[in-house]
C-alpha cells in the first residue's frame, strides 16, 4: 500500500504504517491524522515527539508506563495516565500514536 502527499509517494504496510521510518515528516503525521478525522493539537505533538525521541534511542516504542510518566512530566501530572492518552488517541496510544509518529506497529500480546 501507499499514499501520496504533494507528488511524493509513501510506502506503507497493510494497515497504513510507514514502511520506511526515514520517510517521516510532520506533514505525514498530519496527513495520517486527517484520514482518521483527527486534528493534531500541541498535546498530540508532545506524544508524537516523545515517541520519536524514544524510538531513536531504543529502537522500540516506549512501554505504556514510560510514556505516561514522560507525558506527565511534559504536560502536567494529571495528564500522565493512559486515560488521557486514550482521549488523545482513541484507537489506543500505542498503535495510533505510533502510526502518526512513523514508527512500526507494536507486535505481540498487546
Amino acid at each position, binding site marked *: 500500500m501507499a499514499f501520496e502527499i504533494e507528488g511524493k509517494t509513501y510506502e506503507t504496510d*497493510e*494497515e*497504513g504504517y510507514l514502511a520506511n521510518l526515514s520517510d517521516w515528516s510532520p506533514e505525514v503525521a498530519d496527513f495520517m491524522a486527517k484520514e*482518521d478525522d483527527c486534528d493534531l493539537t500541541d498535546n498530540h505533538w508532545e506524544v508524537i515527539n516523545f515517541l520519536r525521541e524514544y524510538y531513536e*534511542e*531504543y*529502537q*522500540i516504542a*516506549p*512501554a*505504556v*508506563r*514510560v510514556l505516561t*510518566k514522560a507525558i506527565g512530566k511534559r504536560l502536567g501530572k494529571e495528564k500522565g495516565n*493512559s486515560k488521557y492518552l486514550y482521549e488523545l488517541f482513541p*484507537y*489506543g496510544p*500505542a*498503535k*495510533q500514536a505510533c*502510526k502518526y509518529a512513523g514508527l512500526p506497529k*507494536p*507486535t*505481540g*500480546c*498487546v
Partner: protein
Amino acid sequence: MAKEQFETPKFRDIPIVPAIDPGAMAHSKPFIAKPEHQEPLGFPGELVENWKEKAIDKMGELLGKYRSLQVFLDACVKCGACTDKCHYYIGTADPKNMPVARQDLLRKVYRRYFTLPGKYFPKLVGAVDLTEEVLEDWYRYYHQCSECRRCSVYCPYGIDTAEITMAGREILDHVGIGQKYSNEIIAKVHKIGNNLGLPEPALADTLEGLEEEVKEDTDVDVKYPLDQEGAEVLLVTPSADFFAEPHVDGLIGYGKVFHQAGISWTLSSYASEAANFGIFIGNYENMQKVAMRIRQAALDLGVKRIVVGECGHAWRVAYSFWNTLIGPFDFLDPNYPVPQHICEFTYDLLQKGALRLDKEANDDKVVTFHDSCNVSRASRMGPMPGGQFIIPREVIKAACNRYVDMAPETIHENTFCCGGGGGLLTDDLMELRVKGALPRMEALKQVIDEDGVTHMAAICAICKSQFTKVLPYYGMGMDMIVSLHQLVGEAVVLGAEH
C-alpha cells in the same frame, strides 16, 4: 485506522444455538506473512509452485509423526456434540466454525489421499481433491480457531480440534502461506528475545521506571532485577507485562511478592519472553527454539528455580512440554516444581504464612475470574487435581473480600476463550475477535447485573489485551480487566516481617 464494517453481536436472551449463516465469515482472513517473516522460521517466503504436492507430503509426514492426528481424523462420527461449543460459531453463526466442520476441511483431503475408500470412491466418503479453493478455506478457517480446546471437552472421542488446526497451519506455512501476525512475532523472538522486539536497553530502562514508580507509591525499594547472576529464581513472563496495561500492574505485583518473601529473583534480557507462538503454528522446531532461550538463560544465570508469569499458552508449553522439549532440568532445585506458576508460587507463600495480604485494599472491587483456556484445559497447577482452577481463585480470595464466579458452564474446564487466543490477537481479525468474545461477555454481564461485579481478573497476556479491546464493544469499560497479581500487589503488606 480502518472504520469497522461489522456489528457487535447482541446479547442473547436465552443462549440458544444460532441458526447457521453459511459463508458469514468467508471474508475473514489475516494478513499473509511476507518473506522476511517466513524465512527466519525455515518456511518458504511465498506460495511454492508445487504447493499441492508439498501440502500432501507434509500431511503424510505429520500423520506419521503424530499418531494422534490420524486418530482424530479417523475417529469422528459426526455426532454433533461439538457444534455449539465453539465461541466463534456462537458469535459468527458460520457453519464452517462448527468444530466438526472446521476439522472436515482437512479431513476430507486426508480421506482423498490417505484412505482406500477415499482414493477409489471419493464421493461416497466425502473425500475431495486439494484445490486452490480448499487451500483458501484452510487459511481462512484455521485462523478462526483459537486452539482453545473447549470442543474437545465435549467430544465423546476426545478429538482435539486444536491439533487439527495446528496441522492445518503447519501445512500452510510449509507451502509458503503463513500468517503475518504469528510469524513476524516468532522471528522477533529468534532475533531479539521477545514478541515485542524490546531490546535489552529499553527493557532495563522500563524496569528502572517501574522501580521508581513503586518507590513513589509505597516508599519501599522494590527491585525489578535484570540479568542478575546467582539469583534464586528466574522469572519468565510475557513481554506484554513490560509494555501494556493492565499487564504491567501484574508485573509490579510479582515484584512485591518476591520482595516481601525475601526471595532473590531476576528477569532475563535473553529470555525476555514466556510466550511461545511456536505452539500456535504447530511447529515443533520453532517452539523448541523459542523455549530453548529460557533453558539457556537459567543455566547462564545459575538460578535454582524457574517461575512462569501470567501467560496462558506459555504455561501450557512449560507445564506440558518443557521436560521433553528443553529438559532435563536436573540443574534446578528438586524441592520445587519445575516449572512453577507465579500463582502457585504466591499460593505457597500464603500457605506458609510468608506473605500477608490486606484484603481491604481491594474493597472497591467485586472480582470474578476468567479461566484462560490453555491453563484450564492443557495443564495443571500445584499438587491437587483441579489446582489450576483452585489456586488462582484462592489467591484472589486471599487478596479480595468480594469474589464471585461466573456461570458454571463458562468456567473451569468449560471456560470460554477470550476470543483472541491461538495467534488471533491481531487487528486484522477484529471482527472475529469481537464476535468470538460474545459468550464470555454474556457470562460477565450476568455477574455484573446479578452480583455487582466490577472487575474480571485473568492470568494470560492475550486475554488481558483482548478484553481491553473488546469490552467497550459490549458497553463495558476496558479497565474492568485486571491482572491477578495486580490484586495481589494492591494487597501485599510491604515492610512487615518476612
